[in-house]
């Protein structure tokens, strides 16, 4: 006889734990059909209440899967909800209008074509894809598309809304993970010692497994006992309770990652109590995945949390007292208990007799039967097999202690041969494991261990006194004694012969036979077995399967379970959305004080590192012309600006730069390049000697932070120079006023300095007042024209800029951007570090040899350059023009006939090139072999696939006599 599923409304008359509010209905849809839920329901509890038993299709064989754990651990109830794929429907609250659909089933969850793969499962053993689809090779991409579409669970919704993700930082003396009886006791004990405690639990309320149990504890039902304890905790002034919060990672120095909805919580604790309980796990037997086969705790949760009847006729398979309590509870909820199959020979007699159903002791599960749903179970007891009809098979046969956080932090677990569980064998400092995570299952043991861990954690966080230590010692002694007398709550995995569809791994549809076959093929260590058979690599990450896997592996290899070991625990404990992890992008945007002005004038802005800079204001050619023929102004606030104070600055400069700095008079400016220890060009810029013991250094925009850090490293780690460096990059705005009329414009708004060429010549610096602002003027010439860099306090930047633009109006002043500046500097043959040089360029090759003074005492990189100088320079950075006017692209390669596939060999490359409106020709910089680097030499460059001729030209292209520059 078999029991048919009848009726739709499986809601029990009372929900004892009051999790749901029957006064408030919520409508939602599942696969297009509307369902009614109560407030407090999860998606799965509401569906189960409406009689839905198939929630998903399995990964490989597309078998029907129903609720297994109802606690957010297994893969069986994964659905697509709203925008989110792979939602654990059993722990996700239902909301009004939520659209839920099943995944990985076509055309529908009820009729899934891919379930036909079961018929050919014998041709699809573990790793079948490694053995097929190779010939002919041309067909592999087609095979692969089929495999790809068969794999995969949920779907990404292209229009997913960004969401309101955020992050918070928290600090606690003691963090307690798990709000069951162990965690509650631990939190109270630690807080009572004075520690500030943060208690995290992934469930919506505290109480742990007691929250959904009704057996008697000291005269009250378990859930009421738990509620009272939870209330005490919640009322404690030093305990911060965070429910609906899953601690998913424990990283170095007790840095915990937790997630609560769309919020990431980063918690630093001084001590951590792991009281995360244990995952109830299923045994391996034939058809152990049929809908209606579920963990005892799942049945209990359905009944007691959401008032849902998980079946009408149940068989309870039990290996511990909790299973027997469960049978009693199901009975009280009106479910017929067809039988209790007790795996132990001698269960607690009092509990057995309380159940009005036949109890088979010393039983073993043979198989479950059914096609769409479990219809009966076959058990062996007393030497004979019996078939018992049921529509619910509740399994209370084993636990995996939830030690992931402890393991992530570097702890270890070992198999306990007597208790058949992986228990902590080495716990990292600062972490304390308590309760079911430590293998305790009776309430007295759990609470004692919780209190002990709480006191230990408080002591670790430097709370507690001699009394606390005494209490700790007492509890430790009692715990040790209790542990020595513990009995198994978990049954060992039965060493059955491989049957059909006896799944060790639900996520990946891996059977006992698949595991044995993989081992026989040579994948005999647990990690290889995992990687080949894919056991434990799915959504549950081994929570449901790992214990069985290790036992099956040990049984088949003949090793002990302890020696077989377990796989590595990797974060996160539960999958976490990338939205929560990523939060909002916090990378700053750096803006110059004149930014709004540029934007208002229609500048095209570009990214330059973190900065935004004007690329141009519409017509870069006009901007170039303004500099060459009139006057123009560029915002160079992004330049690195470093104040150097102290008597030893000249010594510092002498060592930082490759050229000479000892004799730089006050009021003078000098250009220099810095190389690193390897002699590679790292930055360039000018430094001005402004007054006694005060120098002002500029660095490139991109190199500013690195140069400052570099200077500090030498100052602080060995040179003992009397120099104080200050990074003033953001303290000052800077602009370059340049062009033949620059002096006239500047003179209109400047006081306190004689700007004449004689009084203020090229490469000099002056302090002055510009447009009312205290300004530093550097007469330098990156553009090749008369020019003044004007550095003012950042707050004056905009007003000085506007004053200069006003003053320049009569001269046709234009603002100019990065693009015009690139053309201008190229006309002058100035290099850009990082564009014309790369990570191996030394200054001797880059045409900067005149700036390298190898006869100086010492400077950074000197030895490397001396060694490099012993060899003839092999390649050079030179200027070039294109006689036929072709404009190459930066990155084009210079070639000659050779043995490459195109008959060409690479001998150089173009690093910079532009059409010069001033010179009316294409100009640029390129790397060439030294022998070909003489002006006038022609070379071949590959431009957009065609070979073109370039010609080496002398630098600079513009104003070689520097008459404009020094005017």
């Amino acid at each position, binding site marked *: 006889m078999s029991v048919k599923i009848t009726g739709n409304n499986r809601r029990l008359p009372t929900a004892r734990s009051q999790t749901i509010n029957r006064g408030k209905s919520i409508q939602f849809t599942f696969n297009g059909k509307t369902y009614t839920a109560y407030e407090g329901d999860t998606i799965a509890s509401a569906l189960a209440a409406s009689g839905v038993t198939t929630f998903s299709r399995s990964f490989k064989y597309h078998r029907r899967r129903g609720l297994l754990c109802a606690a957010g651990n297994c893969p069986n109830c994964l659905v697509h909800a709203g925008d*989110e794929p792979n939602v654990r429907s059993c722990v996700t609250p239902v909301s009004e209008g939520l659209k839920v659909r099943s995944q990985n089933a076509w055309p529908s969850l009820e009729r899934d074509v891919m379930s036909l793969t079961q018929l050919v499962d014998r041709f699809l053993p573990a790793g079948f894809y490694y053995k*097929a689809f190779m010939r002919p*090779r041309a067909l592999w991409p087609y095979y692969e598309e089929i495999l790809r579409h068969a794999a995969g669970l949920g779907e990404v919704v292209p229009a997913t809304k960004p969401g309101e993700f955020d992050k918070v930082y928290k600090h606690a003396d003691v963090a307690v993970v798990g709000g069951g009886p162990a965690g509650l006791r631990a939190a109270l004990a630690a807080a009572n010692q004075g520690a500030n405690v943060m208690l995290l639990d992934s469930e919506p309320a505290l109480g742990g497994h007691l929250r959904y149990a009704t057996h008697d504890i000291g005269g009250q039902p378990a859930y009421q006992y738990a509620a009272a304890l939870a209330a005490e905790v919640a009322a404690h002034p030093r305990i911060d309770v965070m429910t609906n919060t899953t601690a998913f990672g424990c990283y170095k120095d007790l840095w915990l990652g937790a997630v609560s909805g769309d919020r990431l919580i980063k918690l630093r604790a001084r001590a951590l109590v792991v009281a995360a309980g244990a995952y109830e796990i299923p045994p391996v037997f034939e058809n152990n995945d049929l809908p209606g086969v579920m963990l005892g705790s799942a049945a209990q949760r359905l009944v007691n949390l959401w008032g849902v009847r998980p079946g009408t006729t149940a068989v309870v398979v039990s290996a511990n007292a909790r299973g027997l309590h469960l049978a009693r509870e199901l009975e009280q909820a009106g479910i017929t208990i067809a039988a209790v199959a007790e795996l132990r020979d001698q269960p607690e007699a009092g509990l057995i007799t309380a159940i009005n159903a036949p109890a088979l002791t010393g039983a073993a599960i043979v198989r479950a039967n059914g096609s769409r749903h479990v219809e009966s179970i076959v058990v062996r007891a007393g030497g004979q097999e019996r078939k018992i009809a049921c529509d619910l098979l509740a399994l209370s046969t084993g636990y995996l202690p939830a030690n992931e956080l402890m393991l992530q932090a570097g702890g270890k677990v070992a198999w306990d041969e007597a208790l058949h569980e992986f228990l902590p064998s080495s716990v990292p400092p600062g972490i304390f494991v308590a309760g079911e995570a430590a293998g305790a299952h009776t309430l007295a043991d759990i609470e004692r261990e919780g209190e002990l861990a709480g006191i230990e954690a408080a002591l670790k966080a430097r709370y507690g006194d001699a009394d606390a230590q005494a209490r700790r010692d007492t509890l430790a002694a009692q715990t040790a004694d209790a542990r020595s007398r513990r009995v198994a709550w978990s049954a060992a995995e039965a060493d059955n012969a491989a049957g059909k569809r006896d799944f060790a791994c639900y996520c990946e549809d891996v059977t006992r036979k698949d595991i044995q076959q993989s081992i026989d093929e040579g994948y005999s260590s647990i990690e290889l077995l995992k*990687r080949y058979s894919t056991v434990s690599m799915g959504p549950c990450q081994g929570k449901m399967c790992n214990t069985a896997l290790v036992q099956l592996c040990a049984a088949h290899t003949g090793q002990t379970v302890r020696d077989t070991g377990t796989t590595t625990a*990797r974060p996160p404990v539960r999958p976490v959305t990338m939205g929560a992890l990523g939060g909002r992008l*916090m990378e700053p945007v750096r803006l110059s004080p004149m930014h709004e002005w540029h934007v208002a004038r229609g500048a095209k802005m570009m990214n330059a590192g973190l900065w935004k800079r004007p690329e141009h204001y519409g017509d870069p050619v006009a901007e170039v012309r303004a500099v060459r023929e009139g006057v123009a102004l560029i915002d160079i606030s992004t330049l690195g600006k470093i104040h150097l104070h102290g008597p030893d600055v000249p010594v510092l400069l002498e060592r930082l730069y490759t050229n000479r700095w000892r004799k730089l008079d006050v009021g003078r400016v000098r250009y220099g390049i810095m190389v690193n220890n390897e002699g590679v060009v790292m930055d360039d810029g000018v430094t001005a000697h402004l007054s006694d013991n005060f120098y002002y250094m500029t660095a490139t925009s991109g190199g500013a932070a690195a140069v400052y850090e570099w200077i500090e490293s030498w100052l602080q780690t060995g040179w003992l120079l009397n120099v104080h460096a200050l990074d003033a990059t953001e303290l000052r705005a800077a602009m370059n006023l340049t062009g033949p009329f620059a002096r006239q414009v500047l003179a209109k708004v400047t006081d306190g300095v004689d700007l004449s060429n004689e009084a203020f010549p090229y490469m000099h610096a002056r302090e002055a007042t510009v447009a009312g602002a205290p300004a530093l003027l550097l007469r330098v010439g990156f553009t090749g024209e008369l020019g003044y860099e004007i550095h003012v306090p950042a707050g004056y930047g905009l007003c000085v800029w506007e004053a200069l633009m006003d003053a320049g109006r009569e001269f046709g002043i234009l603002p100019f951007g990065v693009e015009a500046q690139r053309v201008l500097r190229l006309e002058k043959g100035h290099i850009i570090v990082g564009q014309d040089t790369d990570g191996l360029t030394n200054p001797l090759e880059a045409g900067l040899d005149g700036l390298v003074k190898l006869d100086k005492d010492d400077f950074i990189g000197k030895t490397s350059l001396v060694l490099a100088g012993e060899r003839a320079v092999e390649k050079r950075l030179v200027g070039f023009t294109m006689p036929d006017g072709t404009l190459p692209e930066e*990155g084009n390669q210079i070639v000659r006939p050779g043995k490459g596939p195109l008959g060409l060999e690479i001998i150089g490359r173009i690093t910079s090139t532009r059409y010069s409106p001033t010179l009316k020709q294409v100009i640029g910089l390129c790397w060439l072999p030294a022998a070909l680097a003489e002006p006038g030499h022609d070379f071949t460059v590959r431009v957009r696939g065609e070979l073109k001729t370039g010609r080496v030209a002398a630098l600079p292209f513009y104003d070689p006599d520097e008459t404009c520059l020094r005017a």
Partner: protein
Amino acid sequence: MLQLIRHGLNGKRPFPRMWREHELKDRYEVVIIGGGVHGLAAAYYLARDHGITDVAVLEKNYIGSGGSGRNTTIIRSNYLTPEGVLFYDESVKLYETLALELNFNLLFSQRGHLTLAHNDSSVRTMRWRAEVNQLQGVDSRLIWPDEIARLCPQLDLSDHPRYPILAALYHPPGGVIRHDAVVWGYARGADLRGVHIHQKTEVTGIDVTNSRVTGVRTTRGTIKTGVVLNATAGWATLISDMAGVRLPITTHPLQACVSESLKPFLNVIIVSGSLHVYVSQSDRGELVMGASVDPYTSYSLDSTLGFLEGLSGHLLELMPSLARVKILRQWAGLCDMTPDYSPIMGFTPVEGFLVDVGWGTYGFKAGPVSGKRMAELIATDRTPDLLAPFRLSRFEEGRLVGEKGAASVGH
């Protein structure tokens, strides 16, 4: 395929073992330290191409337990330097036919590889790479947002992101592969030809007499040999120190993670150097994601939360629709970084002690070519042209390889 059908029809007929277990002999002609793709490939090619089968591969854990099983499996040859391109191109070509050769489907998926450029300087570098690649016969070109959108509609190609996408280097032959399968396939190929693979066998010392290798000490006994190849990653300097050979290497962790399994939607490999992320979708449906190496040296295989945060934040910049995709698992591997982001292969000052190390973040893709060419080096006692740029002596000679610029996120 036939094997599957035979097995299916006759369930009692077991598949043959992939590799055997052996007693450790007291003498081998060649000892290879490291049972990853490099060591196993070298053993395979020694046996296949040069008839040298008296070879032991020593693996302290299980085969593929190091970098070979921890990388993100990207295979490509669009490097920056001509020598790099030539070298990796041979590897890609070997990978293309490897499944047939080993009779083991490696699930090599040449889906195309996109390196995104977010600023003008990376556009310049991408063009430089494309030009070098084309001149070496490698399919690689610069593409613009319209074509990027066709290849990967999930990318946000608007100008809203902090780092807008300006262009990309497109490398159609780039792909991903099942990394473990490569290890297992090579192991079986080597085993079939007589190579001894010794798992759970840790090297504890290397005997050197008069600057010549004479033996290797292990946790399972001592081996006499005249040729030792250090093909380890993460522990390359510690192993070389045993032979008295110092290497210019520092060891950094590299982290990676996968998402839960999803129906196929991402058909190309996406890399962003500026955002330090790369992502592909495996045939199992998981997104496989990584970033650049951890900023400080370490032998720790611990994961960090900062990695997940940074990676997720940056990836969502590129593909905002992934906000509800969940990270399933994260892990770390060890990378031996050299000063020029290029490997070290060949002879050392100790005769008979050879290295195939310093593979940074690009070792897996080079497994076949390094194995093949290191086998040639061992068999012929001379350095193949392809390996010459990567010799150990280049550091003292001041002739570093110029991959540094392009390889800072070299996936």
